[in-house]
């Protein structure tokens, strides 16, 4: 063992332990110092997820692909939903990409503390690391599905538009929304495991409240303003816009929903930090 310890994580030479702390002290510095733990937790999530599965990482693709096939058969073929002038399969796939990521990230960040309960009750680290890792890890699944999507796109002879540069922005919006919800629900989940059982329903309902299997144009005109307050509407329409060259989303509604996300994120951070200190006691 070497004695040459210089700038290690916990070397913050003095730690003060007190009962209370300011409400707005988010201790983001501590999260930064522990960024390598974040990295290793994300790595763990990615590695563990498909290990010892015969099809391995292929599952990351099979799941959304299967959903797209079901949507295409039921809503595209039988129900004959319109699809903004592009083949229904790509229409649904382009929307399933961000939605699958969002659904996964939301559920995992809301459940992350409970899944790693032993860690929370036996080791100190900034608790924020866990939900952060949980929204970051499904990005890999997204990337895999995205590659397959590009293949499908090529098959149909469609090429993405130059607006593709906005895709990371859209993905980032979905990520922040998932994180905000995760931060708000995780402390409740620590206390009441009901969250774990309720969340899948909510996500399911939310999916049908978003223009995934149907186009935005099917939503009656007078409701569209209210409908577009759902932040995922902008993200999904945005995906179709950059990938398929359909109408661009309503930027005003998007701006509004970004404000909503920012507010929810801030509220989530404060709420999470407020309850964080009791996690180990009640988990």
């Amino acid at each position, binding site marked *: 063992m070497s004695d040459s*310890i210089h700038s290690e994580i*916990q070397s913050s030479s003095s730690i*003060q332990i007190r*009962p209370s702390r300011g409400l707005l002290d988010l201790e983001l510095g501590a999260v930064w110092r522990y960024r390598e733990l974040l990295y290793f937790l994300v790595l763990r999530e990615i590695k563990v997820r498909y290990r010892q599965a015969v099809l391995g990482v292929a599952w990351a693709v099979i799941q959304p692909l299967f959903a797209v096939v079901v949507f295409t058969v039921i809503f595209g073929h039988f129900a004959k939903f319109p699809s903004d002038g592009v083949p229904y399969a790509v229409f649904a796939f382009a929307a399933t990409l961000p939605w699958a990521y969002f659904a996964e990230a939301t559920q995992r960040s809301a459940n992350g503390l409970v899944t790693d309960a032993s860690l929370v009750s036996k080791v100190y680290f900034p608790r924020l690391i866990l939900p952060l890792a949980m929204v970051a890890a499904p990005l890999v699944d997204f990337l895999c599905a995205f590659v397959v999507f590009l293949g499908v796109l090529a098959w149909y002879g469609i090429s993405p538009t130059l607006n593709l540069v906005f895709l990371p922005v859209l993905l980032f919006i979905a990520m922040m929304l998932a994180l905000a919800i995760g931060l708000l629900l995780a402390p409740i989940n620590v206390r009441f495991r009901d969250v774990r059982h309720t969340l899948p329903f909510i996500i399911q309902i939310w999916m049908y409240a978003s223009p995934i299997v149907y186009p935005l144009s099917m939503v009656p005109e007078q409701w569209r303003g209210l409908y577009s307050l759902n932040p995922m509407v902008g993200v999904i329409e945005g995906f179709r816009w950059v990938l398929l060259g359909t109408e661009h989303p309503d930027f005003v509604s998007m701006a509004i929903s970004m404000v909503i996300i920012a507010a929810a994120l801030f509220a989530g951070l404060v709420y999470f930090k407020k309850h964080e200190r009791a996690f180990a006691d009640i988990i």
Partner: protein
Amino acid sequence: MSDQAAIVVKGLGKRYRLGLARGRHDTMIDLIAARTRDLFRGSKEREEANGQEHFWALRDANFTINRGENVGIIGLNGAGKSTLLKMLSRITYPTEGSAEINGRLGALLEVGTGFHPELTGRENIFLYGAILGMSKAEIVRKFDSIVEFAEIPKFIDTPVKRYSSGMYVRLAFSVAAHLDPEILLLDEVLAVGDLPFQRKCMEFAKSLQAKDATILFVSHNMFSIKNMCERVIYLKKGQIQYDGSVEEGIARYEKDGQLGKLSWGRKDAPENWPIFLERFELLDEQGAERAVFDFGERVRMRLHFEVRESLRNPNVIVLFERSDGVACCNFSSVADGLSLDGVSGGTVAVELLTPPLKLVSELYSIQVIVRENGYQDVLCAQMASSFHVRHELYDMHFGVFHESGTWARGKGQAVPVVKERLYEAQ
């Protein structure tokens, strides 16, 4: 910085809601039901109900630990030891008071928390290292040393779920050992793994001591406490009962533990046991009270039982356990031919006189166990007392006991023969 105390604890206290431990509201329906009940209760009733829901796991703890000090924290289960360590390691937060920690802190409350069974040894070293607060660069630098210390180079790329429990613990501890902290909080973690590894852990702890690290060490094992610490904090029911020399602290702890039930014995409350050790006297051969015996002395013990049921051939067993947890010998009334068949109701006293003790110089605890019908069900299992054996030479390095053998030396080429009567069966 160097003359600063490592840990300063002022008025530290932690209050838990009992409701969290017992009958906690795990679902929202439960909570709503409880709140609704509260509505219909009078305000006084409610206060009563809530007042009982709180208890202090630790209260009013004050102490300062200087740099390089090694302090043992002892106490019965539920005395607040783990709560204290959890607060100092920032896993949970105090209700009142404060603590200040100066120096790089490493806390090991459980070895291997955060290991993932599906990941390989190599992957887990990095993950667990990061969880304990090491940087990636630091882990890379120490990687070979970690693997070597854990003695698992061949299995480093095998998922740890295929490891034996010993390998698992070795790897986990090895990572933790390389944390190289200035202040180390240890909760009973050295008590895992096989004997050679435990020895290694002790050596590691000593090496930290040599580096002038500050160690705060929770243990039920008085042997490790005596070995590692020069100061003891004895906690009882959430209060610091004693803070000072190791001998005095352990003596008080053991006195308080007398006649207490042994954790493995019976699950029900001692009030319901068919037989209960009410009083225990530890005497020398002449009948005078003693707690320290010279090697070779005989020990006289008087056991006063309260018998509550008619017992079928009860077997009174007196066990000597060395402070490192080695069961050294036991005396059994059935094996030694004392019949207690048919005792029922009231009190019964039993006396036991041991042969001359050949146990090595150490601290021993005396446990009393009563079994039904020879070696059947445990009727009663209690900690009776403890004693020291004194000898200037024979200590644990000589094993469990020492008895002289007979030797002979050969003359020239001749085979030596010990001239003694053959041992005859008695």
